[in-house]
């Protein structure tokens, strides 16, 4: 399911004194199966954009197409997207409400009209995907630890088995280990289920580590789209959009100021760096 967005403009409360333009003429295309990261400073329109993809907002102008479903300003019923696009909002544990973890995770599947049996199967599967032990199923979600609550909430979205998974700052408030675990799971599941994943993040390190396509928003406009290795090495332009380079990129740049021949700029993670440096060192050792 490709996502195609054409000239998308969104204005909140149009025609009132409180009118606020959130997106202006956004064109973009997210190929099916990609791990896309949407990055931009606060107020750049990221959240408005993903709410369109989730079918929670309609464009003021322009349109978007997800698979074969097209949504424009006059679309009446955007509920056709339900079940196809899953969204994990910021601090998703704040939406837990059921008596047990299993019931909460089953909420989405049951809303899709699935049978209790099938919903149950999906609950089990989703819990396994996020790595929640089975015995937690009958516990109250409010008695879980913070990290477990987050995983239960993510499972509630995954249980709908969406083709497209949108994650809005999924790791906010987690400790470093929890962050890595959650995104590793998502990346693994994406390959397993051939999902499209759209990650909205303030963390350039996360975008660099997981995404294969990058979309940069700035003040409601899409200013750049491309491969992480190309976009993250743009230096000053990133700063102009209120973004920072990943740490690895900064380190490579410092190194390349003196190193001849320089290391490739496209090293985005610590693993990339390690391999490149070790390779160069061994090369020099055994000429």
């Amino acid at each position, binding site marked *: 399911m490709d996502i195609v967005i054409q000239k998308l403009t969104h204005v909140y409360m149009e025609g009132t004194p409180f009118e606020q333009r959130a997106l202006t003429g956004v064109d973009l295309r997210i190929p099916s199966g990609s791990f896309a990261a949407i990055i931009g*400073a*606060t107020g750049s329109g990221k959240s408005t954009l993903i709410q369109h993809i989730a079918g929670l907002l309609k464009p003021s102008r322009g349109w978007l197409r997800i698979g074969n479903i097209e949504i424009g300003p006059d679309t009446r019923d955007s509920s056709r997207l339900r079940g196809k696009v899953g969204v994990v909002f910021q601090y998703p544990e704040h939406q837990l409400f059921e008596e047990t973890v299993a019931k909460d995770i089953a909420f989405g599947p049951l809303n899709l009209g699935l049978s209790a049996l099938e919903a149950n199967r999906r609950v089990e599967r989703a819990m396994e995907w996020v790595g929640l032990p089975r015995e937690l199923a009958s516990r109250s979600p409010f008695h879980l*630890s*913070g*990290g477990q609550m987050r995983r239960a909430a993510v499972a509630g979205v995954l249980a709908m088995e969406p083709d497209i998974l949108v994650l809005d700052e999924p790791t*906010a*408030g987690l*400790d*470093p*280990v929890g962050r890595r675990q959650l995104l590793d799971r998502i990346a693994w599941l994406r390959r397993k289920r051939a999902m499209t994943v759209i990650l909205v993040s*303030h963390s350039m390190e996360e975008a660099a580590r997981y995404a294969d396509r990058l979309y940069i928003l700035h003040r409601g406009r899409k200013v750049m789209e491309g491969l992480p290795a190309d976009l993250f090495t743009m230096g000053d332009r990133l700063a102009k959009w*209120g973004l*920072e380079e990943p*740490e*690895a990129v*900064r*380190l490579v740049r*410092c*190194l390349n100021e*003196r*190193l*001849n021949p320089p290391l490739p700029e496209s090293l985005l993670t*610590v*693993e990339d*760096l*390690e391999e490149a*440096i*070790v390779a*160069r*060192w061994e090369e*020099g*050792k055994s*000429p």
Partner: protein
Amino acid sequence: MEPIIQLDGVGFRYELPREGKSDWSLRGIRLTVHRGEHLAVMGPNGSGKSTLAKLLNGLLIPSEGCIVVDGLDTRDGKTLPAVRRKVGMVFQNPDNQIVGTTVKDDVAFGMENAGIPRKEMLERIREVLDRVGLNGLEASSPHHLSGGQKQRLAIAGVLAMRPEVVVFDEATSMLDPAGRKEVLQAMEELHRTGTTVIHITHSVREAFCAERVLILENGKIQWQGSPRELFLQSEEVCRWSLEVPLAVELKNRLRERGLPVRQDIVGTEELVETIWTLLSRN
């Protein structure tokens, strides 16, 4: 160095109405915070960091041992208002610590409680809003502020009380990078002007700005030292599930692969220098 807060054999556990006493959240804490110091407190969730913060200004009273703030024992109920004036707190959730319906009202809240005359309040409000860079927003409603601005408002409210110590209880963890930077700058300014700063945080990058780092685990002080010393013990750092700066992680990885990289490198510049020497030599 003159001590400002002293904890002697401090332990804390909650008294639950039905189940009796809970397990110890903190036990055997002995710690001296010096006047003007910048101290970072780190540790995994549930290690007792927040309990420690709440003990420092008498929001919680130690179950054993005692805490003395600038000569005042927090167990003495009569001195509590004075203790709370001396030790200001900035909490994690920016929304849930703003009481006033406007910026000005909120800065005034603490001063109103302390019975400070109106004329002086107005002067102090002007002064502290200037210090945190929120002047001109006096009449704004808090919910129109950004996360970083909200936290700076909370800092202003604390500063108006002319505190000796400001405790930041994970005050940056819910902010975006821009907001984080704003709060860290404010923190830095406080430290520069002689206020004691205690920063409870998850982020190693933030703790790096401190002079001393304290690591809590299971309610005990596991380690303390300078940020630099901390990263020399990288296995420990991993055990406490702290985030390691890229330079330190890369150094460890390179050493494991057998590259002759010195153990005591912690900064990016030193590492760049070392790698450059290594790769250019051959």
